[in-house]
């Protein structure tokens, strides 16, 4: 097991005299040097196609990709590596399902009220294209999930597509209960695990999730990598929406023969370097203790939450209890543009935070809130960085 206090050395960017204070993991995590090295190794030593050519270089790629697929399956405790489809990111994973799933007019897709655009727009588009119905479960006053409301609304739904941990406020929805209730109502569930995968142990069998989607770039992996997990039987029943290169075993001028799952969903030449990098990231994460990560993030979150609560003008999005917001502290000042504060934090102390609506425009619009600053932690952050953040923010607030 890796020592959480000794991980910063694994990230070159965090070395040096004045490293950045990186509080934007919810957007994209940093990568350990070994992830980059693994990708370098691919490009420098065996930069070939996987699953096609017969030469040694290609064979090495094929083996590596297969190994990563197995590691991903093991990482989320999937029954088979066939349940792992490589995509470019969570957005693509969700779109893949949206366009492969046999929806018909009138089918209902149920979402929470703080879905990332990647889990909202595909459904709205399907609504406009084929006439599915999109229903939103309103959250509680404190922005937590309303399970009672969910119970009322789940009946008659075709698919529940739900964020696991919100990128807006860090609140983790009760996935187990949601899935259980949905299954009792005969409804399938897609879980958007983009934010949760790197911060908590996800066991798809224990959760009994039908589909989950996540991105490599939020879990120490390279950008441009994502996964769609699906139960094998379900995946086999879906028709691929993007086809062509790979995806088929044979074609004539009149016909085609699809490959088996998962290849039938992986159209075109894959990002082998990315997949290999993702594999390395998973190896790294497997050595981490997720409980320790959660405790560390909670400690940082508590420290920041306590400091922010001293400023009367600051409003934290989500529940007051930092324990419920895992690694995220998203805050705003009513009527103020928060981009300015984010820029000042960066200029004054090299603090990288996200400002804006975090691709959850719908939530901000419905509440008439301009935008927020989002601080998101990971195991490579420390208390000293939080203290610098607080001191810098104090200075900024003095002049606003």
């Amino acid at each position, binding site marked *: 097991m890796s020592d959480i206090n000794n991980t910063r050395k694994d990230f070159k960017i965090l070395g040096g005299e004045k490293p950045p204070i990186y509080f934007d993991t919810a957007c994209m995590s940093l990568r350990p040097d070994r992830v980059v090295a693994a990708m370098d190794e691919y490009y420098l030593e065996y930069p070939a196609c996987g699953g096609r050519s017969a030469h040694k270089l290609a064979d090495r790629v094929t083996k590596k990709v297969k190994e990563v697929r197995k590691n991903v399956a093991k990482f989320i405790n999937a029954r088979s590596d066939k349940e792992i489809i490589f995509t470019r990111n969570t957005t693509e994973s969700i779109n893949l399902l949206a366009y492969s799933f046999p929806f018909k007019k009138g089918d209902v897709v149920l979402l929470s009220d703080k879905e990332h655009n990647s889990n909202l727009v595909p459904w709205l588009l399907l609504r406009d294209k084929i006439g599915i119905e999109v229903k939103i479960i309103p959250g509680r006053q404190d922005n937590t999930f309303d399970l009672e409301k969910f119970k009322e609304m789940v009946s008659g739904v075709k698919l529940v597509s739900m964020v696991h941990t919100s990128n807006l406020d860090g609140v983790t929805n009760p996935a187990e209960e949601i899935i259980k209730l949905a299954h009792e109502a005969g409804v399938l569930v897609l879980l958007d695990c983009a934010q949760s995968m790197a911060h908590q142990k996800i066991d798809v069998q224990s959760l009994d999730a039908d589909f989950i989607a996540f991105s490599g770039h939020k879990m120490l992996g390279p950008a441009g990598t994502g996964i769609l997990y699906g139960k094998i039987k379900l995946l086999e029943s879906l028709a691929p929406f993007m086809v062509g290169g790979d995806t088929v075993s044979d074609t004539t001028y009149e016909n085609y023969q699809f490959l088996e799952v998962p290849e039938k969903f992986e159209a075109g030449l894959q990002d082998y370097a990315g997949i290999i990098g993702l594999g390395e990231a998973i190896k790294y994460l497997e050595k981490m203790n997720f409980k320790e990560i959660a405790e560390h993030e909670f400690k940082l979150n508590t420290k920041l939450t306590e400091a922010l609560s001293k400023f009367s003008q600051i409003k934290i999005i989500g529940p007051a209890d930092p324990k419920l917001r895992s690694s995220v502290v998203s805050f705003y000042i009513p009527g103020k*543009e928060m*981009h300015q504060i984010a*820029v*000042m934090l*960066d200029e004054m102390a090299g603090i990288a935070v996200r400002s*804006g609506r975090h691709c959850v425009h719908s939530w901000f619009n419905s509440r008439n809130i301009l935008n927020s600053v989002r601080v998101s932690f990971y195991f490579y952050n420390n208390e000293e960085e939080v203290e610098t953040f607080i001191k810098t923010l104090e200075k900024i607030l003095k*002049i606003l």
Partner: protein
Amino acid sequence: MPCIVALIVFGIMGIFSASQRALAKEAAACVFRRVTFRACNTGFADKVKGKLLAKVLQRSTFLAKVLNKYYEIFSWIFFILMLGSTIWVLRGVYNFYVFGSCNGLNASGFCAFDPSGANNKVTEVNGSSESCGITPKIEKNITLKNVELSSFPSLAVAGAKDTVVFIGCYDCDYSRKAYPDIKKLITKKKANYIFAHYPAKGNITDLLANVGYCVYHDYPDKFWDWNSYLFATDKDYILDPKNMDAMLAKFNFDVKTIEECAGSPGTKEAVAAQVKELNKTGIYGTPTIFINGKAFVGPKPYRVYRSAINKFIFF
């Protein structure tokens, strides 16, 4: 307002840099939203403000507070100053194009496009030494009003609306520089043309003035070739009296007659009268070129003369 300022600044910088071009685009999007009465939602204005405030805040909380409070006012002030300086720069560019100097016609202040002031340099007419410095004199004192030019060599073009008067000296480098452009101008623009030789360097050029007077008198058709020859030939050669016979012979002039004419008191008086007449213009150096009465002192780029003929001068 900060968006407009940013658009102008980054727009100009964007000509040279792709990264600045991207910022200019962001600023343009912001301006577009503002002029269509919508809030700027690109975050650009906040980014700019944030960067500025951060820099000031690291030095003084008080100043940062003031800047934050009066940011819009400061932006307006900056905008007005920038607008003023932009107009000033544009005026300079315009002046340089049409007058050859950023500061206006014959104005001698520093001009970034002509740092050596070459377009204003003249051979002073009040002394024998060639002064290459920039003189503070201005063209408004120079005029053709009440100056009688009928005795000078002239070329009239039927129907021509423009008149060019070239006052130059064969021994003046700047006149020699300007001469080909003036020749080209009157050919291309079909303008009436009057040439006046001003013996700017005293005795040394007097002889050429006198000979020129006689050549024009006796051979008016050949005068222009003679004139062009003198401007194009090495100065030391044309100024050496020993070469005069050969030069006159080259054009098949009656050498003896011309020399007698040039040495006659009548010619000297006539040339002196011409110089006296030219002095009435108030010129302070050669070349001085009048185009439709407007004086251009010093060897201007050709486009300046062309602009004057084309009536491109608005101010």
